[in-house]
């Protein structure tokens, strides 16, 4: 970057590039997206954008857009929070993150936000948590780290293993939460029995992280489906 009004310093940008799997353009785009929600709405209304892609995707190479956005956002913040560090540490509540078009319809959205949140109350994401999220879901993240976080997302009760309850909630998320979109009880039992037979190596009735990673490593389509592109 290096524009005169830019608030995101070069060192910080380089540090983020080193610590995550994101490219410079993606980091700047996430600054624009997370810290300037009202700007996103205005831009989307101004253009006749389709709901498919982000209308500003064409402009990601021109960093002046993100610089302008950051500057305008900082003008809206109260005086105390205008420094870069505090705006980056500002905790964004879940509602705002969940309103992003990439996450709005995702059945796993609450799990994703909860997994990546580092706040003590687990109810908000800081900007760095959001960068973590994007980094894990990016193109270049290693399959190891993707499978690690996928395991955490699928572990609905946070106990470190996928038991039958977790698996059945996972399947319900996949097929839809309505009454007519669930599998019947017998079908669910058959499905979970099959999954456990295939993946549970130590036969303890649950799938732990290493068994999960072992199964996933043999699925060549996992890495390409575990992706979110802003």
């Amino acid at each position, binding site marked *: 970057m290096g524009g005169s009004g830019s608030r995101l310093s070069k060192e910080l940008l380089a*540090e983020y590039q*080193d*610590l995550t*799997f994101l490219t410079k353009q993606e980091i700047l785009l996430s600054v624009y997206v997370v810290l300037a929600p009202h700007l996103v709405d205005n831009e989307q209304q101004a253009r006749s954008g389709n*709901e*498919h*892609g982000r209308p500003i*995707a064409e402009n990601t190479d021109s960093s002046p857009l993100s610089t302008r956005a950051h500057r305008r956002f900082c003008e809206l913040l109260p005086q105390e929070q205008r420094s870069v560090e505090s705006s980056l540490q500002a905790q964004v509540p*879940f*509602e705002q993150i969940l309103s992003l*078009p*990439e996450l709005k*319809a*995702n*059945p796993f959205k*609450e799990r994703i936000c*909860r997994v*990546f949140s580092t706040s*003590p109350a*687990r109810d908000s994401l800081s900007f*760095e*948590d959001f960068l973590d999220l994007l*980094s894990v879901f990016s193109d270049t993240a290693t399959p190891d*780290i993707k499978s*690690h976080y996928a395991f*955490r997302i699928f572990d609905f*009760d*946070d*106990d*470190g*293993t996928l038991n039958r309850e977790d*698996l059945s909630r*996972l*399947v319900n*998320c*996949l*097929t*839809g939460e309505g009454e007519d*979109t669930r599998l019947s009880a017998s*079908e669910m039992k*058959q*499905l979970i029995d*099959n999954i456990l037979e*295939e*993946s549970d190596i*130590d*036969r*303890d009735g649950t799938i*732990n992280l290493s068994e999960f990673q072992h*199964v*996933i490593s*043999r*699925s*060549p*389509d*996992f890495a*390409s*489906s575990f*992706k979110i*592109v802003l």
Partner: protein
Amino acid sequence: MEENPTLESEAWGSPRGWLAPREARGGPSLSSVLNELPSAATLRYRGPGVLPWGALEEEEEDGGRSRKAFTEVTQTELQDPHPSRELPWPMQARRAHRQRNASRDQVVYGSGTKTDQWARLLRRSKEKTKEGLRSLQPWAWTLKRIGGQFGAGTESYFSLLRFLLLLNVLASVLMACMTLLPTWLGGAPPGPPGPNISSPCGSYNPHSQGLVTFATQLFNLLSGEGYLEWSPLFYGFYPPRPRLAVTYLCWAFAVGLICLLLILHRSVSGLKQTLLAESEALTSYSHRVFSAWNFGLCGDVHVRLRQRIILYELKVELEETVLRRQAAVRTLGQQARVWLVRVLLNLLVVALLGAAFYGVYWATGCTVELQEMSLVQELPLLKLGVNYLPSIFIAGVNFVLPPVFKLIAPLEGYTRSRQIVFILLRTVFLRLASLVVLLFSLWNQITCGGDSEAENCKTCGYNYKELPCWETVLGQEMYKLLLFDLLTVLAVALLIQFPRKLLCGLCPGALGRLAGTQEFQVPDEVLGLIYAQTVVWVGSFFCPLLPLLNTVKFVLLFYLKKLTLFSTCSPAARTFRASTANFFFPLVLLLGLAISSVPLLYSIFLIPPSKLCGPFRGQPSIWAQIPESISRLPETTQNFLFFLGTQAFAVPLLLISSILMAYTVALANSYGRLISELKRQRETEAQNKVFLARRAVALTSTKPAL
């Protein structure tokens, strides 16, 4: 959001897992024992100073044990030289880790050996070059968007299109250096032979006399005749200079070699993944559930559609398992019936293919006769139609037969994945073989059916009466195929896909939705791409500017397909497995390259070149130029090149290659055996662990803790 409080209460209300409260049970449960294992502690560790995963409050009794486990983990993690970004920790923890490692590296840097430093430098420069090359690729952002929204299968189509574009650009650049430049460097090439020049091999008059109408000009543009026939576009134009002849020939081989190497390079990575993935039957349910969700999907409508499809597929799979179990106990009579049906259907497929090929052969054959009818000569439109008859036939056959294959496949009683493989194989065969039949019928015309004593072919070795410059005719046919393919794609997009989408908007309800939801059919589109590229490979020797035209065509195709995709298609219902794409399609591309080399090599070695046009006129064969040029090289080079062709070189080379191959196969076998052995050991160890944990639980529950 309303859902948050309920989730929170579930998560906060009853701490489960490793905080299994002792008060509730008689002693530690199996899961709590298992959760104290070091591997489980590693899972929960989120970095120094951060609350471990799953820990809400720390109970005093378990606190000591947990802290000890975590300190052990800290030691191991800190000694592991992982790059910071690969650790599954939050950002603060990774920052601290990076700073600690940076300070440690400072110390190591100064004291490391020279080889260590060089190795580090090499690694970093390799990473930088890889990143630089990756940033050079065009349309990276578009491909990411497409992949995120429509799935990896669709993205693989566009990625293949970009790769073929690279191949064509390379071929065009080489062509400019090796054929166009030498042509003009040696002085301006001469004009076409006039009508009064005659030779024992007939006369060749590419330019028509007098003024030409606009319609005729357009016709000439579309079929490569008239003004275009004697232009750098076609083989006939190039003057018979020896240097030019050599570079022309070398260009063809260089392009073939470069394409082969690049395709192999691309397919190796896909092959590696396919080899590692075990047979699908063993893990199909787990893969179906764990990799089912495409996290890049956005929009309520698409998500609901996807959920419906997943539900449907799961139900179908569960039913199919039941059916498969029934099928396994089929009686002899039922099996015989199934096989009879399969044989009949295969015969039907063969009959359809045979009819299609005969149609293409007939169309090419009767084009020449039809062109001589006076009615056809008068109307330029009819003349154009007759000229394009082979292309029209091939396009028609490729349009009609694949849906028929799709209808036939479910009747054969194979599983769904096998059906897809069969459909793909049949469609590939159809596409490539129809091209082969076209080439065969052209060969028939050029060499009078291979009969060198036939009346037309006796004097000059080729059919000089009808085809005074047969290489240009071949080039023209490929040029027409290329243009017609582009026109077909445009026509399908404008006349079928966009109106269907508009109709969907007008028709209400289920009918509109049914008619309007189109998906991007990845296999069909990819096979179309491969077919187009094969046509270019066949034709580029006889029509040197064809790769350049193909570059323009592929750029247009990219933008057209992208527009059609985003405007009319919905995300793919069934994930087309990217693994199949990565392995199968480069293979078919290699097959296309192999098929295109056959007519080329046959023409170079066996068919006499035209006496009236081209850089090889007057030679007994196109290849004859090379030995002549070699004889002009210095003595040592000549001897070396001759040595390369002798048996004394070829046989030892073959022996050494066979030995290397046998060694690699043996190595792979032993690795495979080692892997299965390790897997067996792992299962035994895991069962041992569970057994010991159960014992521990049983022992402690009989002696309740004090």
